[in-house]
């Protein structure tokens, strides 16, 4: 394995409370030393002068579409998009074809990632067979094969009894249960957030309550079972309040939010552009305010993209016919810097936590820090340079981003995985 010296950047490692201009030396794929003026012979040097050097970013919510839906994304292309977005580790959701509900599929993903992915890939297993919500998947075997959590993302478990059994098992296996909280009966047929905008546009609504009732149910089940419940892409004011309340009562709960849910609202939908269609839907002003307040106060544990690639032909149709989901790996850091850091909501250090220690702690990954001995994953980014996102240049196989043409202040500069530079802005 190669050695790398990242020189001259401002090194911020929230896990070890380190913040200083320093060099980072990586040998044999692991962090060897962090300090000023490190000299090392026969190493590659990455000049990070003027930039911030952070532990490698982790995106705990990504759809890689492989196996089975490779025309939209592959493990290889999704991993390249992750690297281009500054991520060194990603977790892939199980809604592939076939569903990742067995050790066989998990092993395939792990093996394939080892062969073709430029970043670390950690699979998330299904809760139920085929994510049908009926019978538990082979969770124990998948755990042995490498899953870091379970989730029926996109097809939430509607049966509370099944969810209870899953939580009991997950607790014994020491993995979190990630739920895409949506009551499918309440949201059925909906295309966008239910409110004044959906009524004006004549599009069917997805009420906030469809998310809130499931968050409430799962919090109660987490209390009952003692399981670790993680709320995926939390999007409403009331769900945020419930998670804050549950945390104050020491229920084992964490949550993630996506950049699009704190950056934009349902008012964007007036163009009927299908790139604004996702689940949960873009909510309204007071929800965005509550999400940002939750990030500021520490209720939110992680930022995750819910990168959901769809082929162009699927997104180029009438709004109500096209599938839900947008890509997000390449715009996450730019959006977070522009919307949260530069607007004064959080510090750069807090932002790094949300991309590193936050997800690492939830998933039990021994990553997200620059302590000597840790994985040699480093994200180098700059908070100031201005750039414009061109979706046509995306590393992803899909183009369904609402942020095409958007200008950002700050973004990734270089992505280092296991001591190797996997992506560089130049």
């Amino acid at each position, binding site marked *: 394995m190669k050695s790398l010296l990242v020189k001259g950047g401002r090194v911020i490692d929230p896990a070890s409370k380190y913040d200083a201009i320093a060099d980072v030396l990586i040998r044999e794929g692991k962090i060897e030393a962090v300090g000023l003026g490190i000299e090392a012979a026969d190493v590659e040097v990455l000049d990070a002068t003027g930039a911030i050097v952070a532990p490698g970013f982790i995106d705990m919510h990504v759809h890689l579409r492989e196996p089975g839906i490779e025309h939209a994304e592959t493990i290889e292309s999704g991993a390249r998009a992750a690297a281009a977005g500054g991520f060194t580790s990603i977790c892939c959701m199980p809604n592939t074809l076939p569903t990742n509900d067995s050790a066989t599929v998990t092993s395939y993903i792990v093996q394939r990632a080892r062969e073709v992915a430029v970043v670390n890939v950690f699979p998330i297993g299904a809760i139920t067979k085929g994510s049908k919500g009926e019978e538990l998947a082979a969770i124990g075997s998948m755990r042995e094969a490498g899953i870091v959590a379970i989730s029926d993302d996109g097809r939430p478990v509607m049966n509370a009894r099944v969810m209870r059994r899953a939580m009991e098992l997950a607790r014994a296996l020491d993995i979190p249960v990630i739920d895409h909280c949506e009551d499918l009966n309440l949201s059925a047929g909906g295309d966008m957030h239910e409110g*004044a905008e959906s009524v004006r546009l004549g599009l069917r609504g997805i009420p906030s309550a469809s998310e809130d009732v499931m968050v409430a149910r799962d919090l109660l089940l987490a209390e009952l079972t003692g399981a670790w419940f993680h709320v995926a892409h939390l999007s409403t004011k009331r769900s945020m309040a419930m998670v804050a309340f549950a945390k104050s009562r020491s229920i084992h709960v964490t949550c993630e939010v996506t950049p699009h849910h704190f950056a934009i609202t349902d008012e964007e939908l007036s163009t009927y552009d299908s790139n604004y269609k996702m689940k949960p839907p873009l909510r309204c002003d007071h929800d965005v305010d509550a999400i940002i307040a939750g990030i500021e106060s520490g209720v939110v544990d992680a930022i995750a993209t819910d990168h959901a690639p769809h082929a162009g032909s699927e997104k180029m149709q009438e709004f*109500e016919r096209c599938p839900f989901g947008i890509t997000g790996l390449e715009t996450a850091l730019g959006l977070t810097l522009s919307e949260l850091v530069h607007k004064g909501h959080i510090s750069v250090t807090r932002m790094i936590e949300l991309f590193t220690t936050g997800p690492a702690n939830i998933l039990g990954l021994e990553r997200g820090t620059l302590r000597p001995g840790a994985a040699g994953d480093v994200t180098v980014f700059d908070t100031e340079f201005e750039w414009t996102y061109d979706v046509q240049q995306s590393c992803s196989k899909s183009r369904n981003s609402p942020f095409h043409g958007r200008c950002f202040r700050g973004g990734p500069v270089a992505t280092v995985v296991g001591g190797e530079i996997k992506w560089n802005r130049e």
Partner: protein
Amino acid sequence: MDTLNTLVAMRPNAVVMRHAASGAPHFLARHLQIPIVNAGDGTHEHPTQGLLDALTILDRRKSLENLRVAIIGDIAHSRVARSDIHLLSKFGAEIVLCGPPSLVPVELAQLAPGVRISYDMKEAIRDVDVIMMLRVQLERQHEAPMAASEYFRFFGLQLEHLALARPEVIVMHPGPINRGRELSSDVADSQRSAILNQVENGVAVRMAVLERILA
């Protein structure tokens, strides 16, 4: 998208589009250089119906200023209602929306200035100049808003209701009507009904729209 390319290949001067999906003409307009007439998109808008309704009112009233209008029925799924509301509100109309709660969401009051909501039919039509009845659109309803047997009893327009409105009240309906479901036959056929005038004016208004964009 393929439909779009097929249309473009015919080199039309304009496209008149009626579509089951809200926003379909807006989607088309982003990719096409020629004029597109929205002839009704899903549950969003039906602009020429708004225009012909205004013309029909003007046949019987001097102006559209400060009218009191009741729109009754399935507002949530009605593109006609949205276009009428936007148009009449611009002339300062007071608009009452009335129907079963699940078909008249409270957010409709924010659609335009001067709009309010009532779930009581008799209160809604008191002293109004115009009563617009909407067709019960079973094809757009995914679940029953109330027992079918109760709909006409609470939200159907009957002859005795007309006495609550202003003397020269105009009864309108975008058609086709369901006799005995949203309004009784004697109302539909009464002197107050302008339903057939609406149909006639529809031809004139749509000719005018085409002339304006193609001239």
